[in-house]
């Protein structure tokens, strides 16, 4: 081989390269001969078979049906927003993407209007939950198709609660506090995230605020109302709840901390997605046997949950909008979507009423609370409409830190004034 190369003159090499390049241009141009391709970007799922199902089942099936190849681009947890930002800013990259929270609003111009297929899917699926529309309808247009909610609920130890005299999960925050005091004394404290994580902090602190009647901003999206007696009561409760049922480290926890603490039997109750029970069943079967999940407790103004939606959007830069929407339509048809939900065993709670009594809910009855929680789930910033101020409030941890600072020792008046000041600055700039 070496001899052959040496025998070729430099000119020969240039000729061969030029011919090869020309050949590629003529024969190998992906625009001419290669099959059409769609790329769907997703954050790596906590449930590995969920991602594998797209690669091994959906992609080949769709290619067989339409000749269109589907690439499933999985990005690491926590980096999806950065990748969506890059794709939207550069108008290149994947054709479709998973999105969450209020991204449909943030990237409004960069996503295709999918109202037509959303209405069809809704009709076919027995109607959308009201909460489904909260994060994807922007200016009356559906900018994404809701897929499922990753609910955040109470995860608790049935054996230890029973020892403390509770056969079922306490119905109100006050009753939960009472139970927590007993359990902490018995060496089984609670552990709720109060640090700068992505979701487990919002998962209980926003519902707590709402259940006491507190709000950041009115439905007009302009009037800041965090400085209220209701907020003060929620903050006072939180401080007491922290001091009497938890331990100091919760102030610095991120999203993995409470999972680790629960699975290593350090805590008796936390707020989390279904991942704790899922991991316990896989790796800690003894813990799984004594773990249950319940809706958040009620406060004086009701029971609330956080909306944590996973939706699919089509980028405006994708050359063939129709092909991308057709794929999304196919993906959400019961034959496909139903199987995808089943794979994740309710980790993604469907926003379509047709799935309310689907067999997947019978696989693990302890997950049923996640379905029921959809009726009272809202995005942070509720009841204000989607806005960029919402994102800024989350990124600055305004509400989370209001509670955390109170737990760390600051006065209620002081922490509410801090939050009020920040919110005024954020919403004024909107």
């Amino acid at each position, binding site marked *: 081989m070496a001899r052959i190369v040496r025998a070729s003159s430099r000119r020969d090499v240039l000729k061969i390269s030029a011919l090869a390049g020309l050949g590629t241009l003529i024969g190998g141009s992906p625009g001419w001969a290669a099959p059409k391709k769609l790329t769907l970007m997703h954050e790596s799922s906590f449930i590995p078979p969920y991602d594998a199902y797209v690669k091994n089942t959906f992609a080949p099936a769709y290619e067989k049906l339409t000749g269109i190849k589907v690439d499933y681009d999985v990005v690491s947890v926590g980096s999806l927003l950065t990748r969506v930002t890059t794709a939207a800013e550069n108008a290149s990259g994947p054709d479709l993407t998973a999105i969450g929270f209020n991204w449909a609003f943030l990237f409004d111009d960069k996503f295709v209007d999918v109202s037509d297929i959303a209405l069809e899917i809704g009709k076919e699926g027995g109607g959308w939950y009201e909460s489904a529309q909260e994060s994807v309808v922007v200016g009356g247009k559906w900018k994404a198709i809701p897929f499922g909610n990753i609910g955040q609920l109470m995860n608790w130890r049935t054996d230890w609660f029973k020892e403390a005299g509770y056969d079922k999960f306490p119905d109100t925050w006050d009753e939960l506090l009472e139970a927590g005091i007993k359990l902490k004394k018995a060496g089984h404290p609670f552990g709720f995230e109060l640090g700068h994580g992505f979701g487990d902090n919002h998962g209980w602190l926003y519902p707590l605020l709402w259940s006491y009647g507190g709000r950041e901003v009115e439905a007009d999206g302009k009037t800041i109302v965090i400085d209220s007696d209701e907020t003060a009561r929620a903050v006072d409760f939180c401080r007491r709840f922290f001091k009497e049922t938890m331990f100091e480290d919760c*102030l610095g926890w991120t999203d993995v901390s409470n999972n680790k603490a629960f699975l290593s039997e350090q805590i008796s109750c936390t707020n989390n997605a279904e991942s704790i029970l899922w991991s316990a069943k896989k790796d800690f079967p003894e813990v799984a046997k004594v773990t249950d999940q319940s809706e958040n407790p009620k406060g004086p103004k009701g029971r609330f949950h956080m909306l944590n939606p996973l939706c699919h959007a089509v980028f405006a830069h994708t050359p063939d909008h129709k092909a991308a929407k057709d794929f999304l339509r196919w993906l959400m048809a019961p034959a496909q979507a139903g199987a995808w939900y089943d794979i994740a065993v309710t980790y993604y709670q469907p926003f379509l009423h047709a799935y309310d009594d689907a067999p997947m809910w019978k696989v693990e009855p302890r997950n049923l609370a996640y379905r029921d929680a959809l009726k009272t789930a809202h995005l942070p910033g509720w009841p204000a409409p989607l806005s960029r101020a919402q994102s800024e409030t*989350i*990124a600055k941890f305004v509400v989370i*830190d209001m509670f955390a600072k109170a737990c760390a020792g600051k006065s209620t008046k002081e922490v509410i004034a801090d939050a009020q000041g920040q919110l005024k600055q954020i919403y004024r700039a909107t």
Partner: protein
Amino acid sequence: MTAVLAASAERRRPAFSLGRWLEREGVFGWLMVAPPVVFLVALVGYPFFYGIWISLQDRQVAKPGVFVGLDNFIADWHNPVFWQVVANTFVYTTAATLLKMVGGLGLALVMNQDFRFKNLTRALLLLPFIVPTVLSTIAWQWILDPAFSVINWALMQTGLANPGPSWLGNPYLAMFSLIMVNTWRGLPFYAITLLAGLQTIPPELYEAATIDGAGRWGRFRYVTLPLLKPIIFIVTMFSVIFTFSDFQLIYVLTRGGPANATHVFATYAFDIAMGAGQFGQGASIALSMVPPLALIILAMAIYLRPAKS
């Protein structure tokens, strides 16, 4: 005769040669400098000036920017969290740099002695610096975890504390923990660089100082330290820059929590730009690092400049 001379002069005039032209000092110098200059302009200069341009706009993600002058900087000025971030960054940088400087110098002095397994020890010393920061930080996350912390386990076993301290939950301890982890990671850089400097000091100087009656401290004070000054300056300058703009370690361990107690410029700017989609404001926070950093380096350059003797 004249014709003959002219003809021979014509023969002697060298034809243009690319090789010779390239070898001319002026041309060759520029050729050598051009790639790094292009590299710096493209990958450092352009993003830097683009960052300044963005910081002067109300630039939201996926939306065109609107020029707002210094509004973003004024908003930062009135934001109490921004000032907390400034204070955190200074505490973090000052404490970690001082610890690394003192610890690194001590370590270098020890490593400069003769002892068994000296080379192996020197190689092992570099481990914290070699291991990718995210990986070593995840290990630290476990070490500082309340449930699994080996430190707390040891404290509880010896009866010194029960439960152990909340390393990442208490605002002061969280900052302390981050400074410790940063020091652990950056110490080898100081130690190895200063060790290289120590080895360039001629032994005769120590001998002369000893003859003049200098003890251990005298030799260190009047021989080692003055000769190491230029290296201490360089290594401290690098360390200040890296520590001031640290991101990975803090983002993995605390993400700026609890309640912003460990947010520094880089983590806060990232949260605002990428989390909130406010590129303009994020850029203004990131750029606010530049003036204090430049002042620190200038002050260091003046204070640590070599004596003119």
